[in-house]
């Protein structure tokens, strides 16, 4: 129990090259009097796939939302690709980041949501090209070419001219994955991406993500209740409880021989 907050730092030896892509340094997040994340420290090395598990309300999703600057931390700092995310340095001092600064740092990060959040007023193709054209400044042709390649990757080439409402949940989520990848992010955040899907559609989405995990060098930060998927793709698993990492390690270790009683309880409930 004594080293709870630093567990992940100590066990992070696999990061041999030392290039930490994401660093949480003593991050505390409260909603009112409710402490969601409690002095959290952890980091993720470039190219690693990290899965966050734990009971609901343990702060996993909040980590992704902090990285997306959808919520702001009360204390502590977050670094992405060497840059402060929620702060910026001005005259040698750390001050809260301007929206402009946050947006620049955030360009390294893509996110796929539980509820897909595709733009219902745009067809599939434009859902994917909108940001590359208007954020990265890609020419329309180039963005559409990239969108076609991504749609092929997620197996939806024939749906390019449909509106999201004409697709199944699983298809929408695959479009959302393509949309996130179109920005060529270094980090992909996956927030319970299969939780809103009918059971028979889950496998298709997970297959696409497995494919991406195994064939690209993108860093993944994944909140999921799909333990088999987590075991397949993860380099590291972090077990959360009450806003703290109580245990972390390789999936084989966590899933078959967890040290912490709380982890054992949680896994026996979900597996």
């Amino acid at each position, binding site marked *: 129990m004594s080293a709870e907050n630093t567990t992940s730092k100590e066990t992070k030896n696999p990061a041999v090259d030392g290039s930490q892509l994401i660093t949480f340094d003593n991050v505390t997040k409260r909603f009112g009097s409710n402490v969601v994340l409690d002095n959290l420290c952890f980091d993720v090395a470039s190219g690693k796939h990290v899965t966050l598990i734990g009971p609901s309300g343990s702060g996993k999703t909040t980590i992704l939302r902090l990285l997306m600057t959808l919520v702001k931390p009360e204390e502590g700092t977050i670094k992405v690709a060497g840059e402060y995310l929620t702060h910026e340095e001005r005259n040698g001092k750390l001050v809260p980041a301007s929206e402009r600064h946050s947006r620049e740092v955030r360009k390294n990060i893509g996110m796929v949501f539980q509820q897909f959040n595709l733009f219902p007023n745009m067809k599939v193709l434009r859902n994917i090209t909108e*940001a590359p054209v208007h954020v990265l400044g890609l020419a329309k042709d180039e963005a559409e070419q990239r969108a076609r390649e991504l749609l092929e990757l997620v197996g939806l080439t024939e749906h390019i001219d449909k509106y999201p409402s004409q697709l199944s949940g699983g298809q929408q989520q695959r479009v959302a994955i393509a949309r996130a990848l179109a920005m060529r992010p270094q980090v992909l955040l996956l927030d319970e991406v299969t939780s809103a899907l009918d059971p028979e559609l889950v496998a298709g989405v997970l297959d696409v993500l497995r494919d991406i995990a195994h064939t690209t060098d993108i860093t993944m930060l994944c909140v999921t209740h799909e333990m088999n998927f987590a075991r397949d793709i993860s380099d590291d698993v972090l077990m959360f409880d009450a806003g703290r990492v109580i245990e972390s390690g390789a999936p084989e270790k966590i899933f078959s021989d967890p040290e912490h009683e709380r982890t054992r309880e949680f896994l026996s409930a979900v597996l």
Partner: protein
Amino acid sequence: MTWDWNAVSEFLPRLWDGVLLTLQALVLGSLIAFALGLVWALAQRSSLKAVSWPVTAVTEFIRNTPLLVQLFFLYFVMPEWGITLTALAAGVVGLGLHYSTYTAEVYRAGIDGVPAGQWEACTALSLPRSRTWSAVILPQAIRRVVPALGNYIIAMLKDSPMIAIIGALEMLGQARQFSAETFQPTEPITVIGVVFILIAYPASLLMRALERRLVR
């Protein structure tokens, strides 16, 4: 009291002038109301208190005072400050300004109705604010509120006779003038009532059809 078809046919040419003026006031008034309403709605959401607060105060003031008083103000008081408007111009500005405070509320509801996930997706894609509004939020918000905006056009149609009181000869103005000259109020007033129904009822059917199509 007898119904005089001759009076009806004598009234027709003026009725036509009145219909044209009513429609003119309606179209121009609607354009002002739709454009200005959107400006109010966006300004009220501004994080700058110096913008949102005065706009809220002004729109609340306009919404909670009678249209007729505003029309009198525009037509009779503004000239004191050197701004003289024709009756039609004052009428159009009055209707447009008054109704813009209602359409602002409609837009606000439409914008609030866009799910939080849409904003989050825009953030996740780093879309700039202007693009977030113009490509994602407003198209969805406006689609939702088109029927409600249409209902305000119909409400404005029914308020349009008020501009007769400052002398714009729309339908009611023409009918009043005709009856004053001929001492036959029954026919012209009845006829314009029928014409109002002939415009308003199909329009409201159209709005209902639009609502079924647009609001899912």
